[in-house]
C-alpha cells in the first residue's frame, strides 16, 4: 500500500507557500491573510488592516485593554489552556520591570500551527506582542523561536526590521508614550525548552531545564527573577482581531468556555491531512476526521483504530470518543486533553506497539535529566518497549512497564472509556513525581496503547511454555 495516500489533495484550497494549511469557509481570526502569497510583508499587512488593532488599543487606557482581553477569555493555545487576561493579572503590582516571553518553540509531536503563524503572518504576531505589553505593562519582549525553524526566524526578523523602521516597534510607538523593544531570540534544539520555566532558563543562556513551581511561577518569579508573562504564539496572534472587533464579537464565535477559533493540525492516516482554523468548543473530532471540509475520512476508507487528540503527550482516543467537541471541560473527564491542537490518526493497519514506541522514544530522548523518574524511567520504558516491538519481550516486561509508569505517575492513569473492552474512563489529569510533563508523557502513549490494545502487545511476547518433567512435582518453566 502506498504509505503516502494521506497526502492526496481534494477540492480544498491549499496554498503551496503555506504547506498544509486548508482555508475553508469558516471564520478566520488568525489566518485571514494566509490566502495572500505576500502575507508576510508589511505592505500586505497594512493593506489588510494591519496594526489597526494596536492603534485602537493605544487609544484607550492600558487597564481597559486588559479588561477587554479578560472578558474575551482568550484561552492559552500552548497546551495548558489558561486564559491570557487572567494570567496577565497574576504579576505582583509593585515589582518592575516585567517581561513578555513569547513561546515559539513548537515541538510537541503532531503540532504544526505556530510555525505557520510566524512564517505566514509575522506582523500579526508582532502586533499581538505589542498589545500584550501595552495592556499588562511589560517593559521588554523576547520572542523565542525554535532553533530549527530557519524560515520562521527569517520572516520574523525581516518583519521586525520593517516594523522598527516604520515606527511600530521601539521608542514612542506611533508617536505615543508607549515604548517597547521586541528582541528576536532563537533556540538550538531541545523540546523541553517549550516548557515555560525551561524557556526562561534557556533565555538566560543556561541549559534548558525546568524550574520547580512553586516558587518559580513565571508571573511572579520569571526571567532574571522578575515577573514574566509567557504566552504562546497563537494566543498572541488572536489579539489584533480582538482589538479591532471587540470581545463580544470574539465570544460570539465558539462556546462560552471555549470562545473564538483555534488552529488544529490533523496528521497521519487521513485522506487529507491539514492545518485548519476551526471554531472552538463545538467542532468535534468526527467533524475533523471525517468531514468533507476537513480531512474527508480515513485513508483508503480503512477503519479508524485510534487517534491522539492533543499532541504526543495526550492519552489516546478511539472511535468511541469521536463525537466529543473541542472543549476541555468534556475532553478532560473523557480521559485526555486538547493540549496543543494536534491530532494524529492511526488506521486499522497501524502497528500499535511500534507507533507507541516512536512517542516513548521521543520523550525519553528529550528528558533534560533533572528528575530521576523521568531520566531513568523514560529510558527504561523505551528499552523495554523496544524489546517487545522486536519480539524478544516477555510477560514480565509488560508488567514492568506498568510498574515503571507508576513510579512516574502514581495512582490511576487517565485513559478513555471503551465499550468493547468494558472500560470506564479515568479522567485527566494524573499525579506525577517529576518537575514537568516530559516524564509522564513518555508513559502516556504506552499506557494508552497497552490499555486499549493489550492483545497486540501480548501477541508479540515470547511465550512462556511449561515443559512437564516427570521426576519433579512442580514443572519448571523455561523461556522459549
Amino acid at each position, binding site marked *: 500500500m502506498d504509505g503516502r495516500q494521506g*497526502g492526496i489533495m481534494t477540492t480544498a484550497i491549499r496554498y503551496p507557500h503555506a504547506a498544509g494549511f486548508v482555508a475553508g469557509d469558516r471564520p478566520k481570526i488568525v489566518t485571514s491573510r494566509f490566502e495572500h502569497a505576500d502575507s508576510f510583508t508589511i505592505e500586505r499587512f497594512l493593506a489588510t488592516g494591519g496594526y489597526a488593532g494596536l492603534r485602537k488599543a493605544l487609544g*484607550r487606557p492600558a487597564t481597559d485593554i486588559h479588561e477587554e482581553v479578560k472578558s474575551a477569555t482568550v484561552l492559552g493555545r500552548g497546551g495548558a489552556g489558561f486564559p491570557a487576561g487572567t494570567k496577565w493579572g497574576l504579576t505582583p503590582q509593585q515589582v*518592575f520591570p516585567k517581561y513578555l516571553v513569547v513561546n515559539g518553540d513548537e515541538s510537541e509531536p503532531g503540532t504544526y500551527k505556530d510555525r505557520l503563524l510566524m512564517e505566514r503572518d509575522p506582523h500579526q504576531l508582532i502586533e499581538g506582542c505589542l498589545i500584550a505589553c501595552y495592556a499588562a505593562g511589560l517593559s521588554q519582549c523576547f520572542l523565542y523561536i525554535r532553533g530549527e525553524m*530557519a524560515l520562521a526566524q527569517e520572516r520574523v526578523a525581516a518583519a521586525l526590521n520593517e516594523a522598527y523602521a516604520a515606527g511600530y516597534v*521601539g521608542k514612542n510607538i506611533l508617536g505615543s508614550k508607549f515604548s517597547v523593544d521586541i528582541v528576536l531570540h532563537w533556540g538550538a534544539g531541545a523540546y523541553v525548552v517549550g516548557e515555560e520555566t525551561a524557556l526562561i532558563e534557556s533565555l538566560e543562556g543556561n541549559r534548558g531545564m525546568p524550574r520547580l513551581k512553586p516558587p518559580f511561577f513565571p508571573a511572579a518569579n520569571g526571567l532574571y527573577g522578575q515577573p514574566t508573562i509567557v504566552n504562546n504564539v497563537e494566543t498572541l496572534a488572536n489579539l489584533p482581531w480582538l482589538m479591532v472587533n471587540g470581545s463580544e464579537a470574539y465570544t460570539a464565535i465558539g462556546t462560552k468556555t471555549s470562545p473564538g477559533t483555534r488552529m488544529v493540525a490533523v496528521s*497521519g492516516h487521513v485522506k487529507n491531512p491539514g492545518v485548519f482554523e476551526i471554531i472552538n468548543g463545538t467542532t468535534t473530532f468526527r467533524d475533523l476526521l471525517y468531514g468533507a471540509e476537513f480531512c474527508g475520512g480515513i485513508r483508503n476508507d480503512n477503519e479508524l483504530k485510534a487517534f491522539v487528540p492533543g499532541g504526543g503527550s495526550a492519552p489516546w482516543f478511539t472511535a468511541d470518543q469521536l463525537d466529543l467537541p473541542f472543549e476541555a471541560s468534556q475532553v478532560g473527564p473523557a480521559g485526555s486533553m486538547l493540549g496543543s491542537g494536534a491530532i494524529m490518526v492511526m488506521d486499522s493497519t497501524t502497528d500499535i506497539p511500534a507507533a507507541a514506541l516512536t512517542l516513548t522514544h521521543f520523550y525519553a*530522548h528529550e528528558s533534560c535529566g533533572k528528575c530521576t523518574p523521568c531520566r531513568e524511567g523514560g529510558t527504561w520504558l523505551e528499552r523495554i518497549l523496544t524489546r517487545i516491538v522486536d519480539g524478544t519481550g516477555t510477560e514480565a516486561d509488560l508488567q514492568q512497564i506498568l510498574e515503571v509508569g507508576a513510579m512516574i505517575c502514581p495512582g490511576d492513569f487517565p485513559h478513555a472509556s471503551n465499550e468493547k473492552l468494558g472500560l470506564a474512563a479515568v479522567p485527566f489529569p494524573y499525579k506525577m513525581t517529576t518537575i514537568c510533563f516530559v516524564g509522564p508523557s513518555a508513559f502516556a502513549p504506552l499506557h494508552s496503547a497497552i490499555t486499549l490494545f493489550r492483545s497486540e502487545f501480548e501477541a508479540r511476547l515470547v511465550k512462556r511454555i511449561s515443559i512437564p518433567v516427570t521426576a519433579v512435582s512442580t514443572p519448571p518453566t523455561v523461556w522459549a
Partner: protein
Amino acid sequence: MSRLNDVNIKTALEIIARYPRPKSALIPLLHLAQEQNGYVTNEAMVHLGELVGVTSAEVYGTATFYEMFRFEPVGKYLVNICGTMSCALMGAGDLMHHAEQKLGVKAGGTTADGMFTLAHAECQAACTEAPTLQVNYRFRYKVTNGDFDTLIDDLKSGKLADEIPAHGVVARIRQRIPADRGVGAVAPGLATENPAWMDGKAAL
C-alpha cells in the same frame, strides 16, 4: 581561525547589547560561531565566554544541552529525517532505509567526501506533510524515495546553493535595531516604577 572574526565580533556585541544580561546572548552567539566555522570549536567557546563574561566551561555546559550544536565537523549538508509518530505512520522508516542506501552511510554517519551527514530527527512541526526532512533546516515535504534522490543529486551539482546554505547558517536575515528607534535592554534595577503608559490614560 576559529575565534569569532571581526565582522562577527561586531554582530555579537550588537546582539549582547539587546539583553538585560549578557549571558542571555549565549545561544545566538553559539549559532554565530557555528555559522562561521561549520561547527562550534573550543576556541570559539573560550571567545564567547570572554564576550559574555562567563567561563568557557559554562559556555560548554550550555552548548552541549542543545542538539543543533556540533563539536566536530559535519557534512556540508546535514540531512535530518523526521522519525516521530506522524512521519513514522507515513513511511519515514522506509525513507530512512532508502537514504542510508543512497548515501552509503548509516544514520549518524557522514559520507567520505564530507558532503552529507545523515541523521534521525524528531518532530519538525510539519506533521501534516509527512514524511518530512530538513537539509540544513530547509524543509522538504511528503518526501518519496525519488524526491530524496533528486534532492541529493541537486545538492551535489550545486543547483540548490541559493536556497540551502552550508551547514551552520540557519537564518540568513538578522534582526537589526536602529539606534534611534531602540529602547535598549531594560535590566532589573533599571525600572523601579510602572512604565510611562501605565498612567490610567490612553497612550494616543
